[in-house]
C-alpha cells in the first residue's frame, strides 16, 4: 500500500508525457487533415512540410492542433483512444457485438478476450514442453560430465540464433511433418523458454554445498536418493525464478509464432493492427499482452509461494 502513491505518480507522469508527446508526434497528419478541411497551414502543402521538424510545425500552427488526440490513424494514439479501444474490443464486443458471447454463445474473434485465450493456450503448451525439456536437460547436465561439457556451450550459442526471425520457416517445416495450428507456436514458445529453465535448474541442482552432499555420502545414499532427497528440493527456489523468466519468454514466443500465420491470437491482432494502420489496436493488444505476462508471472509466483509454504519456508 505504501507503494501506491509513488506508483500512481509515475503512472500519472507517464500519461501526461504521453498526451504531450501526441502533439508533435501526430502534428504532420493533423495539419494535413486540417489543410484538407480548408485551414491555412504554415507552410502550405504536405510535401513542403515533409522534412520540417515536428516541434517547429507545432509552434507555427498552434491553432490547428485540435485533432492531435482524436486522430483515426495516429502515429501515437492518445491514452484515452487506447483505453476506448481496449474497452471496445473486450467488454463491448462481447456483450453487444454480433459475434460476442452474449449473442453467439462463443467468444468473439474480434475481442481481445478470445485472442488472449488463443495466445494463452499456445503459451501454456509451449511452456510445458520448454520447461519439461529444460528440466530434463538440466538433470542430464548435472549427472553427466559429457553432457555438461558438450551440450552446455551449444545451449548458449542456441540463444544467439535469431529464432524469432526464423519463426515463419519453422512453421513451414512443421507443416511438412503435419503439425499445424497450435503446435508450431508452441514449439517456438518452447525454444525460447527452455534456456532460462536449463540455466536456473543446473544452478539449482548444483546448489547443495559439499557438506550437504557429504552428509548423504556418510549415509551411503545412492545417486537417485541424492537427487530426490537433496538436489531436487534444493533446486526449487532456482527453478521457480527461472520458470518466471521462462513463462514470459513463452508468451513472447507464442506471439511471434502468431505473426506469420494470421489465425488469431494477440500476435495476429498486433499485425492486423499494423496492416490496417490501426495503431490503437496494436497498443491495445500490447497492453493485454503485458497484462497477460504480468499475470502469468504472478501466477508462477503464487505457485512458488504455495510450494515454499508446503516446504516449510519462512513466511
Amino acid at each position: 500500500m505504501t507503494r501506491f502513491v509513488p506508483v500512481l505518480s509515475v503512472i500519472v507522469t507517464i500519461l501526461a508525457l504521453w498526451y504531450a508527446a501526441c502533439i508533435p508526434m501526430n502534428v504532420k497528419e493533423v495539419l494535413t487533415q486540417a489543410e484538407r478541411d480548408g485551414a491555412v497551414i504554415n507552410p502550405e502543402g504536405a510535401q513542403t512540410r515533409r522534412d520540417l521538424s515536428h516541434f517547429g510545425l507545432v509552434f507555427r500552427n498552434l491553432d490547428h492542433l485540435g485533432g492531435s488526440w482524436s486522430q483515426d490513424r495516429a502515429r501515437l494514439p492518445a491514452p484515452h483512444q487506447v483505453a476506448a479501444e481496449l474497452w471496445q474490443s473486450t467488454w463491448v464486443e462481447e456483450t453487444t457485438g454480433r459475434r460476442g458471447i452474449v449473442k453467439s454463445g462463443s467468444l468473439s474473434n474480434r475481442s481481445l478476450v478470445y485472442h488472449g485465450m488463443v495466445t494463452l493456450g499456445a503459451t501454456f503448451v509451449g511452456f510445458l514442453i520448454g520447461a519439461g525439456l529444460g528440466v530434463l536437460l538440466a538433470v542430464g547436465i548435472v549427472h553427466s560430465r559429457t553432457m555438461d561439457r558438450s551440450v552446455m556451450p551449444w545451449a548458449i550459442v542456441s540463444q544467439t540464433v535469431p529464432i524469432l526471425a526464423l519463426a515463419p520457416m519453422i512453421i513451414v517445416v512443421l507443416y511438412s511433418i503435419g503439425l499445424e495450428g497450435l503446435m508450431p507456436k508452441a514449439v517456438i514458445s518452447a525454444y525460447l523458454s527452455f534456456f532460462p529453465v536449463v540455466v536456473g535448474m543446473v544452478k539449482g541442482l548444483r546448489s547443495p554445498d559439499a557438506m550437504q552432499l557429504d552428509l548423504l555420502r556418510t549415509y551411503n545414499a545412492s545417486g537417485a536418493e541424492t537427487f530426490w532427497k537433496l538436489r531436487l528440493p534444493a533446486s526449487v527456489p532456482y527453478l521457480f525464478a527461472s520458470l518466471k523468466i521462462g513463462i514470459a519468454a513463452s508468451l513472447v514466443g507464442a506471439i511471434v509464432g502468431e505473426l506469420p500465420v494470421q489465425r488469431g491470437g494477440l500476435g495476429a491482432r498486433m499485425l492486423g493492427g499494423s496492416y490496417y494502420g490501426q495503431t490503437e489496436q496494436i497498443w491495445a493488444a500490447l497492453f493485454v499482452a503485458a497484462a497477460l505476462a504480468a499475470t502469468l508471472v504472478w501466477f508462477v509466483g503464487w505457485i512458488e509461494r504455495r510450494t515454499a509454504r508446503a516446504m516449510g519456508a519462512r513466511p
Partner: protein
Amino acid sequence: MKTVISAKSLDLTFQTNDGPVHALKGVDLDIHKGDFVSFIGPSGCGKTTFLRCIAGLEHPTGGTLSVNGMTPDEARRARAYGYVFQAAGLYPWRTIGGNIRLPLEIMGFSKAEQTRRVAETLELVELAGFEKKYPWQLSGGMQQRASIARALAFDADILLMDEPFGALDEIVRDRLNEELLALWRRTGKTIAFVTHSIPEAVYLSTRIVVMSPRPGRITDVIDSPLPAERPLDIRDEKVFIDIAHRVREGLRGGYQE
C-alpha cells in the same frame, strides 16, 4: 580395550594448482571403544581431513586406516558412524522430525521403526515437541542439537563431530557440552571431536590430540585425568587449568616451528 579406529603412519597429500599440500603426514593413532577423543590444532592442520578419512569421505595417499577392522569405505557402507558437521546443515524444507528421519529413510528402516527412533532421539536431545517445526523456527543451539540427533538416530557406535559448536555463543555452548557429555556417558559411544576451543577440548575428552600444520601431524596426545562426571565448575580447578596450559603450550609450539 577394543580398538575401534586405528591409523598407522597415515599420509594424505592434496594435489593443487600451487603444488602438493601435505594435509596429513605420518599420523599414528588408536581410538578405543568408549573413548571421547578431541582433536585440536591451528587452522589447516588437518583435523577435518583426518575425520573425513575416518568417514571414508577422503582417501589417504599412504599408511593404513581401519574402522571396526574394516576399511573406512566398507565401514561407511556398513553405516558404522554418524557424522556431525560444523554447521547444523539441516535441510530447510524438512521439519526437524523429517531431518532426523532422513538417514532412516535412506537406510531403509520401516515406517514404524522410523517414527519410533525419531521420537526417541528427539527425547534424547531434549527436543520433544519440536518434531513438526522447521529449522528456522529453532534457535542455533536447538538446530545443532537436531543435527546431533540426526547423527544419533541410526544408532551407529561411532560419532564423528567436526566443530559442532563452533558457531554458538559461550553460554549455549556450555550447556550443549554438558549434554553431550551426559549422552556419551549414557550410551558409551566412541566419539571423535574436532574443536578450536581449549576449554571445550579439556572439558569433554578422555584424550586430547594436539595437531600442528604443514605438514599436518600429531604433536601431543594428552590423557585426561578428569573423572567421567564433570560439572562445569571443574574448569576453574587446578587440574583442569594445568591440562589447558599443556594444550596451549602444545598448540603454540605447533605455530612457532
